[in-house]
């Protein structure tokens, strides 16, 4: 709730502020200002829409307008009360006071939607040059959309400054080419230097008025020198400007290039000039005028180093020139056989460290010495320098005491004009454990030892490749992330359940087939009885009775579950009794079968009437047995 309240209040306040009418104001960069020193003055109009017209600049009486630059921007704010858009018009002026005392900058005026607005008059106190606090150099701002542009107008808003731009030394009269307003100036820290000594060469751009674009067209070339680029302070959008008075004229000065040069061999060498184009553009980016600038060449004489170099000074390689300190340390001074010690050698100082070699440790008794891992960290301030280090891996091979000898590094100090030597202290190492056998095998990552001994040192290595004819795959591992494993889990219980269900289904299907079988039996009996009746109608008694006998035997076999053909009469009676038949039915059935037997063996003893009665009796017997419960629980 509280957050909601704060949000609503903030939104209303913002809406109130933004809903205000146009504001028109003027402000100074600083006050007081020194006579002849340039300063900034800015007029700003902020209006929410509306038509701006008829802007009149202030009366700058007593000032000289060095530069003038209008700009326009749009600010949009969105909030709960709606969105607000304002147009910001700004006129920047770079002014130089022409007289001392209290001066007044007049009113600026403008019309917005027909209504006139004016700024207040601004008073400026002008004092003698050098009596005012020096303004911090300001970062220039470029024009968006202009690659490489450097719009040189300082911003009035304070912004963080990384470090001040280097100010060129006071320029002699010859520094400015005659008749030129804008020019490039080159400054060398010295024109005579020892071989290997740093000479700093800087190029500056001098402008009498602000420009929009600067583009170098030809970089300087320095044959005979090892060149390191030095840092040049620049703003994010362009060059960093300071003001400088030369020949009574105020210049805007920007450092362009700084290079540290180290002469490689004695002799006279010329550094070719820097060339560049500068231009001004209008509000829409069209070029108003451009100018090609060219600096002067610089000649530097490189003199040889003096005689009397100490031993260890690498004169053939150019030698180390500068000022250096050397240190050495180990990561541990007590170590076991087989465990490595890292010796770190560190050379720190001013000079061309890239080109300088470090002292070496070729061998150490009782140790295997690996090739050093060398690294360089350069600092590119005014003087090139930094740190060069070497890490040397020492592998103890046998127990005992060992001493890493002192290292010495000879160099020439150009400031003192003499040679010097930096030294380290010896380092004592204690090795414990038992001596080991050794091998020559080492991984590609571990360099081969620099020193070879009579022992065969086995360095850290791995067992060899497995070169089988075919790739042995791990099916179990593949199954682990495979859906097949889920199949293995789910499959067996599913199968077991399925088999169980099928058993139940089969049992149920079996019961149905029993009923069907009995139905079929009944249908068969009926069909045979109809056949017997047909035979009888045609007067064929024997076939009729044979059919009756067959129907009885088939039916009874089906009910009893055993063939009745081979049964004795007693067995038949027992079987029929087992079906639940009473004695009359049993005896009637046996009598019917006897009648059929008699007709088969003595056909003439059976009359047509008896045959018809046999058919009726057989039908009745079947019907009565149908009504009895059978041995499998069937029957009505």
């Amino acid at each position: 709730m509280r957050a909601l309240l704060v949000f609503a209040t903030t939104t209303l306040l913002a809406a109130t502020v933004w809903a205000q009418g146009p504001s028109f104001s003027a402000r100074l960069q600083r006050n007081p200002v020194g006579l002849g020193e340039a300063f900034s003055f800015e007029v700003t109009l902020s209006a929410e829409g509306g038509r701006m017209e008829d802007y009149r600049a202030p009366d700058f009486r007593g000032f000289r307008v060095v530069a003038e630059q209008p700009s326009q921007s749009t600010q949009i704010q969105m909030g709960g009360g709606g969105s607000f858009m304002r147009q910001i018009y700004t006129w920047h002026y770079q002014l130089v006071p022409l007289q001392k005392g209290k001066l007044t900058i007049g009113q600026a005026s403008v019309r917005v939607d027909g209504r006139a607005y004016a700024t207040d008059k601004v008073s400026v106190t002008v004092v003698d040059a050098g009596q005012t606090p020096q303004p911090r150099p300001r970062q220039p701002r470029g024009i968006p959309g202009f690659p490489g542009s450097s719009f040189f107008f300082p911003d009035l808003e304070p912004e963080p400054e990384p470090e001040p731009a280097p100010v060129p030394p006071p320029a002699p009269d010859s520094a400015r080419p005659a008749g030129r307003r804008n020019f490039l100036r080159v400054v060398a820290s010295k024109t005579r230097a020892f071989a290997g000594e740093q000479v700093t060469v800087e190029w500056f751009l001098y402008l009498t008025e602000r420009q929009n674009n600067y583009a170098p067209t030809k970089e300087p070339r320095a044959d005979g020198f090892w060149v390191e680029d030095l840092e040049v302070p620049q703003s994010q959008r362009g060059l960093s400007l300071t003001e400088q008075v030369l020949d009574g004229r105020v210049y805007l000065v920007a450092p362009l290039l700084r290079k540290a040069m180290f002469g490689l061999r004695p002799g006279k060498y010329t550094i070719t000039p820097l060339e560049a184009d500068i231009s001004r553009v209008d509000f829409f980016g069209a070029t108003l005028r451009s100018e090609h600038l060219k600096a002067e060449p610089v000649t530097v004489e490189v003199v040889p180093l003096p005689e009397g170099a100490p031993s260890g000074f690498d004169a053939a390689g150019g030698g180390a020139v500068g000022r250096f300190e050397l240190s050495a340390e180990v990561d541990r001074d007590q170590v076991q056989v087989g465990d490595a010690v890292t010796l770190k050698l560190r050379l720190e100082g001013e000079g061309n460290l890239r080109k300088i070699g470090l002292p070496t440790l070729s061998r150490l008794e009782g140790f295997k010495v690996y090739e050093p891992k060398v690294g360089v960290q350069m600092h590119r301030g005014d003087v090139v320098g930094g740190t060069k280090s070497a890490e040397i891996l020492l592998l103890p091979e046998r127990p005992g005491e060992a001493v890493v000898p002192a290292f010495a590094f000879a160099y020439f100090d150009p400031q003192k004009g003499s040679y010097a030597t930096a030294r380290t202290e010896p380092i004592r190492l204690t090795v414990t454990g038992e001596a080991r056998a050794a091998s020559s095998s080492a991984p590609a990552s571990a360099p081969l030892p620099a020193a070879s001994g009579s022992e065969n040192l086995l360095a850290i290595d791995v067992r060899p490749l497995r070169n089988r004819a075919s790739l042995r795959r791990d099916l179990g591992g593949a199954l682990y992330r495979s859906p097949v494993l889920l199949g293995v889990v789910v499959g067996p219980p599913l199968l077991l359940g399925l088999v169980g269900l099928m058993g139940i289904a089969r049992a149920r299907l079996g019961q149905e087939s029993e009923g069907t079988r009995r139905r079929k039996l009944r249908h068969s009996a009926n069909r045979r009885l109809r056949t017997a009746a047909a035979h009888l109608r045609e007067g064929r008694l024997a076939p009729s009775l044979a059919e009756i006998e067959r129907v009885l035997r088939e039916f009874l076999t089906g009910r009893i579950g055993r063939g009745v053909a081979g049964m004795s009469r007693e067995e038949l009676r027992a079987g029929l009794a087992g079906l639940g038949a009473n004695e009359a039915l049993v005896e009637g059935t046996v009598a019917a079968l006897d009648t059929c037997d008699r007709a088969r063996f003595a056909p003439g003893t059976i009359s047509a009437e008896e045959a018809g009665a046999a058919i009726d009796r057989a039908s009745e017997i079947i019907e009565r047995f149908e009504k009895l419960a059978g041995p499998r629980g069937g029957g009505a």
Partner: protein
Amino acid sequence: MSRRRAVALLGLCAALGVGAHLARADLLDQAWKRGNEAHLRGDYAAAAAAYEQLDRQQVVSVDLYYNLGVTYFRQGRLGKAIWAFERALVVSPDDEDARFNLTQTRKLADQRARDKLEGAEREPPWIRVVTYLGPSTQVWLFSGLYLACFALLFVRRRLAVDSRVAVTTGAAVLGVSALLSGLLILGRLHLDRTPFAVVLPDRVEAKEGADSSLRTSFAVHGGLRVRVLERERDWARVRLANGLEGFVRLEDLGLL
């Protein structure tokens, strides 16, 4: 469809499946041989490329991981070598060669830079139990016990009631054993949700969030074993053995 046609169709499918399997195995063997030959003539870059091709095809093989580790070692890529040997040991924890090579590689990596974790704790007991056997062994053990249990249950159905006791007892014992081995697999699957990984480059800076512009929490070196807690785009939140956590790029990690 007649039974004869159905059988013919099944036979055709089986033949196609077997044919495809054999063709794939042949391609894999070719890449395997290519890698071995390149390694033996000292072309470790070509060897690594061939082995990595197999790895990308999801081939699970302790020999592949082992050879990959040896090749990385020869190239001086110790972080990757450690990862490969660790993978070999995940598949086959009893592989003596892989264990030896892993120890050697770690020794060499420690000489370059060693990450000493203050307050590091051992892995919890359940992780040690779950990872005691390789996934392959676990799968075979479980499958064997499980299938044997159900085979006995099938046999039991065919037996007379009075001769079922022994078979039922056997099925019960097998079932309990299968359940225990199945729990091991479930534990490993749970562990895979926050898997272990190995730092691959020589040095990696762990950030405070999934953005390279954020402050560095700490730096670790190649070969260090970390645990991946979660993944966020192409970043992973990792935890060290001493509980420190930070974000590193996924490409700098080799998952185990």
